[in-house]
Every structure is written in C-alpha cells, then in structure tokens.
C-alpha cells in the first residue's frame, strides 16, 4: 500500500480536528479536536519514519503522546474549574479576559 495514503489520512484527521476546535463551543469537544490534531500529527510522524526507514519520527510520536497526556490532565482540570465557576462548558462563556 502506498505510504502516501497515510499522509492523506493524517491531513484529513488534522482538518477535522482543526474544524472542531474552530466551530464547536463545548470545551470538551474542542479539547477532543485538539487531541485529534495531535494524533493526526503522530500519524504523520510515524508514516514519515516508515518512509525514511529510521526511528526518529517514532521517537517524536512517543514524546507527543507523553506531552499530550500531561496536557489532558491540566486541560481537563481547567475545564472542570471553569465549569464549576460558571456552570457552563462553553468556551464562548469564558470571555472575561478582553478589552
């Protein structure tokens, strides 16, 4: 199978994730979009590693997973805190930091 297909898949996943981040209001869903983008990037890394026949891309993918795990912990905690304070998980409601 042509390895380029995996790249196309990763682009599609990235686009879906990005669109989710941009259009959805629910913070949890936005967060899922972010995770989707990260994983699409991982997919691209792994694919390129396979293409070039070395392990660099896989290593980076491992790191991304690690960082994403940490990010999830913090991000969910923030969302929880906002939800408790404002009784809403909508990112548009958390708009106090403006001019």
């Amino acid at each position: 199978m042509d390895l380029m297909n995996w790249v196309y898949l990763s682009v599609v996943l990235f686009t879906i994730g990005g669109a989710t981040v941009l259009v959805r209001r629910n913070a949890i869903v936005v967060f899922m979009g972010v995770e989707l983008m990260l994983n699409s990037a991982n997919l691209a890394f792994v694919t390129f590693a396979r293409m070039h026949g070395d392990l660099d891309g896989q290593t980076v993918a491992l790191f991304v997973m690690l960082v994403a795990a940490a990010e999830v912990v913090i991000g969910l905690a923030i969302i929880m805190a906002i939800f408790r304070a404002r009784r809403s998980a909508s990112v548009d409601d958390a708009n106090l930091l403006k001019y």
Partner: protein
Amino acid sequence: MSAVIPMSGLQAVPATGVESLAWLLVVIPLLSAGVLLLAGRAADRWGHWLGLAASAVAFVVGALVFFSVLGHGAEERARSVAGFSWVPAGTFQVDAGLLVDPLSLSFVLLITFVGTLIHVYSVEYMAHDVDRRRFFAYLNLFIAAMLLLVLADSYLLLYVGWEGVGLASYLLIGFWNHRIEYAVAAKKAFVVNRVGDFGLSLAIMAMFVSFGSVQFDDVLSGAAGASETWLTVIGLLLLLAACGKSAQFPLQSWLGDAMAGPTPVSALIHAATMVTAGVYLVIRSGPIFEGAPAATLAVAVVGAITLLYGAIVGAAKDDIKKALAASTMSQIGYMMLAAGLGPIGYVFAIFHLLTHGFFKAGMFLGAGSVMHGMNDETDMRRFGGLRRVMMLTWVTFGLGWLAIIGVPPFSGFFSKDEIIHAAFEGEGLRPWVLGTITVIGAGITAFYMSRLFFMTFHGRKRWHDGTVAPEPHPHESPVLMVAPMVVLAIGSAALGPVLYYTGALESWLEPVFTAPPELEPVVNLDLVTAVTLLVIVAGVALAFLMYLRRDVPVVAPRGNALTRAARADLYQDDVNDIAFVTTGTAFVRGMGEVDDDLVSRGAVGGVTRSIRAAGAGLSRLQTGFVRSYALSMFAGVALVVGALLITQI
C-alpha cells in the same frame, strides 16, 4: 621622578629627609578637621585646642621643610615629593605629588604662620559661640585645602585645593547661617566663585588638549613651544579663575558680603590667604603668560581696574569690615597688576602679598577686637575715640595703617613702592597709564585707610550719646586676642624693611622665575617715590580734614553721586542683577514655557496620545472569544507555512 621646573631651569630633585614629610602639611589639618567634625559635642571642651595644635604643627613642619630646603644650593631648591598614581587612564596620567619650591614654601609659611595666629585669636573670639568646635574644624579644613592648593604639582591637584578653599570659605561665611542674609552672602560667594572655577576647569581641559598633560613641569616646559593662540586662551581662562577667587573685577561682588563670616575668617581667608590664590595661580603659570602678551596685559588691566575700584568703594563704606574688604580687593589689584607686568613684577607681587598678609590680617583682627568691645557694632559712625580705651588695639592697628598706606619705613612702603616702580618700567604708553594708576591708588588708599582709622579711634565718642542701647562699654580684648595682633603688627612694621634691605626674598624667589628683561623706567624712579609720598600725605591730610577736624555725623549724609555709587559698590550688584540674574531668570522661565508647550504638551504629549490611541484600537482585537484567537493562530500558521513553502520552492 625628576622633573624640569621650566620657570627656572631648576631641576626638581626628589625630596629627602624632612622634605618628604611635606604631605603632613596637608594631612594633619585635614585629620584634625575630620576628628572635630566626627567627634561631635564630645569634643566641645578640647576641640579648639586640637584645631590650634594641628595648625601649629603644620607651621612647625612647614618651617622644618623651609630650613631643609634652605640648606640646599639655590639651584636645588625645587623638591618634588612623590605621592601616588592618581588618575591612570590610558594615555592620560596624573600623579598626585607635591612640589616644594621657594614659591610654594613662601605661601606655606604665610598660611601656617598667620593661620596659627588666627587660631589663637579665635579661641578667645569664638569663646561664647556654642559651635566653636565646628568653627575650628572648618578653619583646619581651610588650612589643609589651602596648603594643598599651593603645594600641588599639577593643575588637577591644585584644582582640588582650589575647590577645597572655596568650600571652606562658603562654610565659614555662612557660619552663622541662622541669619538669613549671612546664608545668602555665603551662597553668593559660592556662586560667584563657581564662575571662576569654571574658568579653571576649562583651562585645565585646554591644557590637556594642547599639552596632553596637566602636570606643572609638562605644561610649563611645553609652554615655550606652544601656539600663542592656545596660550592666550589658557591664560585668559586662568585669569577668569583668578578673578573669581581673588575678587577681581568683574567677579569682585562677593567679597564685601563675605564679611558676614566671623572676623577671624575675614582676616585669614578673605584678606591674608585664600583671596591671594589667584595671584599664586597667575605667577605659578608664568611661562604660559610669557607666551601670551595679550593675556598678560589683561591681567595687568584687571589689576589696575580693581585697584581703583576697591579703593573708591573703600572710601565710602561706613562698615569697618566692608571698608577693609574693599581695601583687600584694591591691594590684591596691586598684586595682580604686578603679576601682569611679567617676570619683572612676580617677586614684588609676592612681596606685597606677604606684607599684605601681615598688615591686613592684623587690621582685621583689630577690627574684630573693636567689635568685641562694642557689642559687635560694625558701623564706624558709631565708633570714635576708642584710642583711650583700647590702647593695644590702637597701637597694633596703627602700625597696620601706617604699613598699608605706605609710610616709610613700614612694610607696605617697600612692597608697594616696588610695584609702582615696576609699573613705570617699559616702553610706550603702558607704563605711564599703569604707573599713574598705581600712584593714584596709593593716594586713595591713604585717604580711606586714614578715614577708617580716624573714625574708629579718634574724634568724638559717638557710642556714648545714649542713643545706642544697650550702651557699649568698650574695653581692651583678652590676651589671647591681643597677642596675635601684636605679632602681626610687628610683622607689619618689620617684614618689609627686613626683606627689602637683606634682599632675602629676591634671592630666595629669583631662581624660580625666568630672568626678567632689563627695562628702562620712563621717569626717574626717585621722583616717582617722592610723588607717591606726596600723594599719600595729601590723602592722609584730606582724611584728617574731613574726619578729624570736622565732626563725623552718626547718620551718614547723603553725599554726592560718586559717594552714593561707591557706597552701593559702584552698582556692581545691580549690573549683575540686570545682566545675569534677570536675563538668566527670564531665559530659564522662557525655556520652561518652551518645555511646557513644545515638549510636554507637544512632542511628549503627542507620542503619549498616539500610543494610547493605537493601544485602544489594538485592544479591540481582544474579544475574549477563544475560538477567534484559535482562528487567528491558524491563519498565522497557514501564512507562515505558505510563506515557507513558497520560498522553498
């Protein structure tokens, strides 16, 4: 460090033995001043004795150094005392060292000797002042700074002493600064001196530019090969400095007000020593002036103007200290004039400086003694008839009076006569003008000093008529005050003839200066002396008729226009007010308005306003919607990636 002292061709040899202790001259009074200032009230009981001891020890050290130097041959009397590397900055090197030569030693002896006498006097004079300790601290500070000024071997170190005496002078003029007008007088002296100091600092910079050094030996030996333009510039700047410190025209206005200080200060700083620093500066810089005839002439002209100016002002003042101050100005005018005659006048300038240091300090102390007995009254119209109650003051003051008006065989006759003779030597119109001025000055001096003497000690007792309350009970001053007056009076009488007939001063100072050119006097000098004596007799006679034969009114009569002008210092303060104070204030106010209008409200305000507007506009982008932030980030990343791709392809 061996150095050529070019004024003389004297080789400055490294000092040995007691001469290398010359630093003690500066250090001892300075330490004493520090102790007195830091010890505070704890030192009140013995502070004045410490101050006196420091000054006396400085005199002893000065005398030891003097005799040690005297022991060398005439060609080896310039001794350099190594100090430390002071400003090591690349190619600019200044070493702090002392130069002990006949010129500086003459000053050292005068300063420490008269200084010590005045310390003795002050112990009694300031006895009732709660701040006597502080007074002695300042006096010691002055002695240290003045000795540093005359002993320095570079213009930069001289400048330190120069500023030091200015500071001490300021502190002492304003010693009773709870009186607001005294504080103002101190400030005035400080500000006017600053103008002169500015000249000195510019001169030092000009020396660095043209000679690359500020050491005496480099500058003075380099002066022979330097361009006349530079030498004239430096010479005029040095003259400006000398005018400030020595109260010469046009910077003389501070000296009269400086009499606000305690009388011993007037005697030491504003008569005998500090005000002669300008003369020292000019004479020390002799080779510079020799290469710049225009600057030399300027010195002589300034001296001539001031000598008449001071004499005219002195003839109208009723305040005994201000009359003496005007006289000091006039006498320093004589010294300046002599210094402006070139090498021929240097020795006589120093000669007059030394004798003047004695008789004028003596007369100031006499004035202090009179004030002491008269409840600090200074108006001579309230004196009169004090001869009977203050016999010793009368005698000592009388000797000073005879000395200053130039009656033979007292000191002033010899020193002033020499200057008058020197002024008549030369060619063309110049000796006639300068010589005539010195003779006229001698006549006015005789008039105003006799006026002062008669008004104070003779005539009707004008303090006795019941109008003065509390009525003073004049009495002779205590022994600690009279003793210095007696010593100074002996000096006033004897110093001149001794130095003149032995020729000691000339042979002592001569190696320091370049040999003066042989000049022919334009008239017979014996005739000049005779005319001078006649003029002096006329001056005394006029004073006798006006102030002894006729009664002196207690309230000053209105007087003619000249008297009124002289009483107001020939309107010097008004001229300064109009020329500098008013215009300066207007200028500053105008600059303030320009600053407000253009800078504050215009440039600075405009920048503030535009930045604030830009910030307000940009802050509209902060919508608070996370998703629009994310969109702009995406757009940004897309742009960057797009740009990268385009440039890569």
